């Protein structure tokens, strides 16, 4: 080819490429007149409340103009809207103090998710096959009202069941009042990684039935028992902020941190000293430390007060928990126990933190009580550098409700499912699902899906079709947190009372409605109306925030709170949730943890853990989180099981090999991840992937450890003992590409490990 023809050719291809870029003239760009008054290119920052976990972090949301695709009167086009652009931590918010975790950053993708349910849907196919047809809001509400009227007509209001996450705040109070006034039992709450055991322990030890807050910036010695407090547990941003200050926030003082666990968590990776203990023996170790502290007269036994008196043998110095005895139980050397005990008692303020796996055993309550007693022994309860309990706003008292409705206590989810499946029981007729996915997150042995399928009518308020909501007959999609009034009354994370609130940040993108408003609407439409004093949810918020103390005499608390993103300060006595009088309890003795599965047949402890990206799986639909490398493994879009290198060598398993994990309840095939941070007799697997249905990004992706779990529970609370299953493992194949890592390997592994 000569030069001339080459230039001709490139000229032709260049022109045709340019032309194809001009768009299709058959579909002209139609611009509709915006509904809102918009200044192009100018950003506003508005307060928000992060909805993704119970921490209740405050947000500041960047809002700017953007072009959204819309259809108006059958004509497709674009319209300029005010859209949220970025979420950042509220700089003044007392919980997160300007920070925001990876999950919170990705919360914006909930609103803009391409697979959001955009309008009410009615089931069109067989239950569970996911076929739906559009229905108007009016028809959808009529359907709900007729179902509830029918139950009321035969006096069977208790046949309405409501399944939700454990929540505390205005929305939860409104749901409870709706159910109570209608005559239904309270909401059934379920969370795989719930904190019922810790709440119960804190009620017993300290009279506070809530998750604790830690004053890390002032602590000099932090002793963690399995709690992933920098990653996924409790109030991670508040704790991460405190951790930074604990390490480097005080000139000349660097707080020390020791973590006890059998699989190194992201939190444990930061410890100065990492102490592997046998699963389920963490409480015994805590009492071993107390034995040394009391025996060496570093602190008197009675310093622990009530928390100590709950432990059998405490006042006698815990003679059953000598370092030698504790070494036998936990595998931690007696000399190390003595040293740690002296450090814990001498390096004050010292605080012990228990959470996660140690509480997910059949003896979890004992372990929590033991750690509570240890904190009380060294004087770390409600003291600087110690453990605190966030004063909580009593929402119902602040709302000045007349005739406060009380609900019958609901059954736990496992009992609820068993009740439906047992012959002769009067099953619920109507089920509302609100923000939970128990078909995914409950052990298969509970048979939740089978039970739900027997309920004649199911309605879901969720924004996405997932493993549970695809059983629904009717879907009434909620607004997202950016499109509606959002609020939180954090249970922990600050030493002062906090109530977060924020007005809608942007107009709803789709034909959705706020669930709180839908419930109020349904209540008004019933034949025997459920009388609540508010027309809309924000009227309830205005009532409670208006009742809070004013910053200055002529201030308006409600407008101030909307501007700041919440109210925080000291609660007057009438508005604070009363500290429950500590219930009477007999002293507890250590109980051996029970495990499901014969150790000969199932030689490994199985530890499912909340993944950094997806927590209990509820965030697996967000693409940023799918592609975020896992902090400990750099895995993206994947599932894996962590295996100790010696165990892997013994079984001939290499990195990425496909292995089969089997318990007495199920099997799963996943990729092996060789990890030095796990005990040889423990296998750990992140929860989060393995959804059958959960949007284009998570459906059918990876594997879930949940179906393997045994239905063992902690007996006092009925909470699932999710760390109490034993499993076996075998290699079934070579790496097949299912494990995707970000790290190339050479830069992130030391020479000796390669």
């Amino acid at each position, binding site marked *: 080819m000569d030069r001339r023809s080459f230039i001709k050719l490139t000229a032709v291809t260049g022109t045709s490429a340019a032309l194809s870029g001009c768009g299709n003239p058959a579909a002209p760009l139609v611009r509709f007149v915006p509904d809102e008054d918009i200044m192009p*290119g100018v950003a506003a920052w508005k307060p928000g409340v992060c909805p993704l976990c119970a921490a209740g972090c405050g947000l500041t949301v960047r809002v700017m103009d*953007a072009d*959204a*695709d819309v259809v108006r009167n059958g004509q497709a086009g674009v319209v300029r*809207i005010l*859209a*949220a652009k*970025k979420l*950042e*931590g509220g700089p003044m918010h007392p919980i*997160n103090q*300007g*920070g*925001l*975790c*990876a999950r*919170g*950053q990705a919360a914006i*993708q909930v609103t*803009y998710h*391409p697979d959001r349910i955009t309008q009410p849907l009615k089931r069109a196919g067989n239950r569970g096959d996911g076929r739906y047809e559009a229905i108007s809001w009016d028809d959808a509400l009529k359907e709900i009202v007729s179902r509830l009227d029918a139950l009321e007509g035969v006096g069977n209001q208790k046949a309405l069941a409501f399944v939700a996450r454990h929540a505390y705040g205005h929305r939860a109070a409104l749901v409870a009042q709706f159910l109570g006034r209608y005559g239904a039992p309270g909401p059934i709450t379920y969370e795989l990684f719930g904190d019922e055991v810790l709440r119960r322990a804190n009620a017993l030890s300290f009279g506070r039935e809530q998750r604790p807050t830690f004053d890390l910036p002032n602590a000099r010695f932090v002793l963690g028992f399995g709690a992933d407090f920098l*990653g996924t547990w409790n109030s991670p*941003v508040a704790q*991460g902020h405190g*951790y*930074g*200050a604990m*390490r*480097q926030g005080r000139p000349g003082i660097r707080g*020390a941190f020791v973590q006890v666990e059998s699989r190194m968590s*992201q*939190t444990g*990776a*930061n410890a*100065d*000293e*990492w102490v592997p203990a046998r699963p389920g023996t963490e409480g015994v170790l805590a009492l071993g430390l107390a034995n040394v502290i009391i025996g060496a007269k570093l602190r008197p036994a009675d310093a622990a007060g009530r928390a100590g008196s709950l432990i059998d043998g405490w006042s006698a110095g815990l003679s059953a928990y000598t370092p030698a005895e504790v070494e036998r139980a936990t595998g931690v050397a007696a000399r190390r126990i003595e040293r740690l005990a002296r*450090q814990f008692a001498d390096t004050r303020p010292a605080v012990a933190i228990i959470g996660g796996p140690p509480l997910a055993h059949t003896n979890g309550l004992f372990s929590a009580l033991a750690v509570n007693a240890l904190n009380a022994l060294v004087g770390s309860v409600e003291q600087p550098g110690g453990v605190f309990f966030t004063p909580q706003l009593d929402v119902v008292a602040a709302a000045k409700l007349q005739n406060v409705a009380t609900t019958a206590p609901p059954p736990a989810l496992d009992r609820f499912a068993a009740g439906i499946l047992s012959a002769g029981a009067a099953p619920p007729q109507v089920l509302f699902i609100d923000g939970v996915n128990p078909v995914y997150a409950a052990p298969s042995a509970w048979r939740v899906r089978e039970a739900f399928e027997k309920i004649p009518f199911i309605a879901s308020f969720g924004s996405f079709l997932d493993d549970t909501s695809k059983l629904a007959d009717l879907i009434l999609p909620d607004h997202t947190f950016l499109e509606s009034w959002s609020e939180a009354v954090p249970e922990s994370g600050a030493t002062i009372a906090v109530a977060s609130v924020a007005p809608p940040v942007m107009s709803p*993108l789709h034909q959705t409605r706020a669930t709180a408003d839908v419930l109020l609407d349904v209540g008004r439409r019933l034949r025997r109306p459920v009388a609540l004093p508010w027309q809309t949810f924000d009227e309830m918020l205005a009532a409670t925030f208006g009742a809070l103390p004013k910053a200055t005499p002529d201030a308006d608390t409600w407008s101030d709170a909307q501007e700041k993103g919440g109210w925080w300060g000291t609660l007057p006595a009438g508005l604070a949730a009363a500290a429950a009088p500590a219930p009477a309890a007999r002293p507890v003795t250590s109980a051996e943890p029970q495990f499901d599965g014969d150790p000969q047949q199932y030689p490994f402890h199985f530890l499912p853990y909340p993944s*950094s*990206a997806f927590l209990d799986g509820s965030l697996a639909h967000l*693409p*940023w989180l*799918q*592609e*975020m*490398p896992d*902090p400990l493994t*750099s895995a*993206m879009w994947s599932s894996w099981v962590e295996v100790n*290198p*010696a165990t892997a060598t013994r079984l001939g398993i290499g990195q990425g090999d496909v292995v089969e994990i089997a318990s007495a309840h199920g099997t799963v095939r996943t990729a092996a991840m060789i990890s030095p941070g796990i005990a040889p007799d423990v296998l750990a697997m992140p929860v989060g992937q393995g959804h059958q249905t959960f949007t*284009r990004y998570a459906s059918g*992706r990876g594997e879930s450890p949940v179906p393997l779990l045994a239905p063992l529970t902690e007996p006092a609370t009925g909470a699932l003992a999710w760390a109490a299953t034993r499993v076996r493992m075998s290699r079934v194949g070579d790496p097949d590409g299912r494990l*995707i890592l970000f790290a*190339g390997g050479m*830069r*992130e*592994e*030391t020479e000796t490990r390669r």
Partner: protein
Amino acid sequence: MPKWGMTADLDRCNGCGACVTACHAENNISTVGADEAARGRAKHWIRVERYWEGEFPDARLKFRPVMCQQCDNAPCEPVCPTYASHHTADGLNAQVYNRCIGTRYCANACPYNVRFFDFFNPSWDKPLHLQLNPDVSLREVGVMEKCTFCVQRIKAVTIQAKADDRPVADGEIQPACAQACPAQALVFGDLDDPESAVSRLSRSSRGSKLLEDLGTRPSVTYLDRQSRTDA
């Protein structure tokens, strides 16, 4: 003229990854999906590296957030045939996307592995495009991209300060990673101002530069994680 720099306190960093997602949100970094990620095409302008040491039960893990080190003596700059990769007067290692012809010489030359190539045009499943930051240009196929120290935030604050006829205050500019970090491990500012927080931290006895023996003179200083002092 300021000289922008950053410190990363490895004693505060706990590996949570908030910076990684914050960077995606701020800089319109497209996700590539599982298949392309498996081919090594995922883009993370900042990542948390992990260094395992020892064996169970004495295993130890150290985290290190790694982004473009904005080297003063940057190996990526002289190899670029089009001056797409060049040095700005305020010490940034800039990348001009419109000049880039995708030779990828810069990525080969960079010892920190922080440059990412766009193997295809970015796309977002609608309406995820509404999250895009209008201050940051999208990178098309065949272009190298990397951490900019959030140059759009630097520009926004300096322009505003100039309009107000005042100097930029220390701490007024926060890249998205530093802004999000719960533990406040990342500090950004002017290294030419000896009183700025980043200057003071950079002079810490705990400070070191990544692969500093290569002579790249990075603008990022890592403050060592301390070992236990009381054991």
